[in-house]
């Protein structure tokens, strides 16, 4: 449940340069409620994975990273193939990722990536 509080405070976080590490783990384990926000400074991402390769990740890489590192239970509720499962809306800086090349979109510094489940029960 904790993650859900994030959605309303997007604005606040835009302004206060808080580095919010990707996901709330608990949220992913207890429920598949993906109203999860990524405040995603790229340096941070690279630190997490612990290697210095590919500076600019694309969405495909990000999703697979999330799958590998954050989803312990039922990854199929989030991912389908290389992409997210239907019913999960992906917003990049409040724009639909369909407008930005979807999987091929390359992350920029300070991008705000939002995965919102539109499914009943999260």
């Amino acid at each position: 449940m904790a993650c859900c509080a994030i959605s309303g405070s997007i604005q606040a976080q835009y302004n206060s340069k808080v580095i919010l590490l990707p996901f709330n783990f608990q949220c992913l384990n207890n429920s598949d409620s993906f109203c999860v926000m990524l405040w995603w400074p790229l340096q941070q991402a690279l630190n997490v994975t612990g290697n210095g390769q590919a500076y600019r990740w694309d969405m495909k890489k990000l999703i697979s990273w999330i799958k590998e590192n954050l989803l312990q239970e039922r990854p199929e509720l989030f991912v389908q193939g290389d992409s997210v499962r239907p019913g999960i809306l992906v917003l990049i800086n409040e724009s639909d990722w369909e407008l930005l090349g979807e999987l091929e979109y390359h992350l920029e510094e300070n991008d705000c990536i939002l995965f919102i489940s539109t499914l009943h029960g999260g």
Partner: protein
Amino acid sequence: MCNVEDQDLLPPSKAKNASRTCIKCKEVAQIVLRADNCYCRSCFIAYFTHKFRATIGKSKLIRSNEKVLLAFSGGPRSSAMLYLVHEGLSENIHKKLRFLPGVVFIDDGAILQLSENERRNYLEFIRTTVSKTGFPLFCESLGKIFPTNQDTNIQSNLLSSDLSNTTRSDATSSSNFDLDTLIKRFKNDELKIVQVFEKLPNSTAKEDMLHILRKKLIQQIAEANGYTKVMFADCGTRLAVKILSDIAQGRGSSVAHDVTFADERNQAVTLVRPMREFLTKEVANYLTLKSIDYRTRLSLTTMKPVKSSIERLTENFVTDLQASFPSTVNTICRTGDKLSVGDTSKIDADAICPLCDSRIDTNNSLEGKTTSKTTSKICQNTADSCCGEGDGSCNRIARINLTAKEIEDRLCYGCRLIFHSNNWEMDDLPQFLIDAIEKQLRRKRLKEEIEEFLLD
């Protein structure tokens, strides 16, 4: 053959239009509704608000100053609805909404097995959100549908806690105020319902029962407080799922009611669905653009496999299809719209299922499965003096002893499936159901008694 239509059904080609433009103002688009249907931020918000008000306005159903109760769960759809209503009332605009809203929240935390802490946080969120609108808030536990022994009379017991009022009078020390007391009271009410849900055979039956009881309780609260309409925030995507899962669960006869803008099955309280023209995706976009705070509602099948219930499986089916064929939801909903509700006033009251209010169109289709249970439901108020009406309207008549067979016979096919297991007791039935069945039986007996005196 029919090339033109086929074009429309093909999955959109994922061409990279690097910057697509808004169909209204040609600015850079931010929201994609369908492949070629993109909006910029402000045009989308205008479109969304307009559609909501137009849906309400078009129906001409809600009169000026009518009391309308908003069914609010804190989830995305009802949060958007609450926001839209609040905005529509406060603005000084042409198409201003003109009704008097109240908000009802039904706490089903006991059935979702939330911890006390989670429930307190959730209630706190509900209270703060609603208090920002200034609308009265009714909070009740779903368990209330099974009245505890001390207070059998459900009507008098529906003193829904008006939280927002309490806070106002309590403003100085409102930090922890009554939430603990409230939860304690809720828990007391919930002993029965938790047992009942444990006995239900599967997630499908549980979800079905949860929806039915929640709707019933909201209607009761509305009626007890003088509200004549209740707004539910079901959007098109949900309704499409509902249509298909209704059919899959043998509830075909209620499909028409479950998806129309106004469900008038209950004479006292009409259910309306002002969000029915929206897709879940549109709602999610709106919430984000407007920074509206909401909670992701857990459901009984949250984090469960896709096949855990009919509803869940149907949702998965519709969502997958919608991803490739963006007109899926619309097509299903338009098909549902074509089903006619029929003239509800002409339906014999005995042919209505007392649990879900839908019309009964089958006869004993679950024959052979009826169990022989006799009722243990004995009249609790021993003073069985009746006003003489004979239809139980005075609520003081002695209880008729019902058998399981009599009860099952009265239910529609879909509702029988809920109880389609052997281990339920008469005690497990909500009081409103028993009352309704007794009323039907009493009427039937009365009819039989006077039958021979009637002229053909």
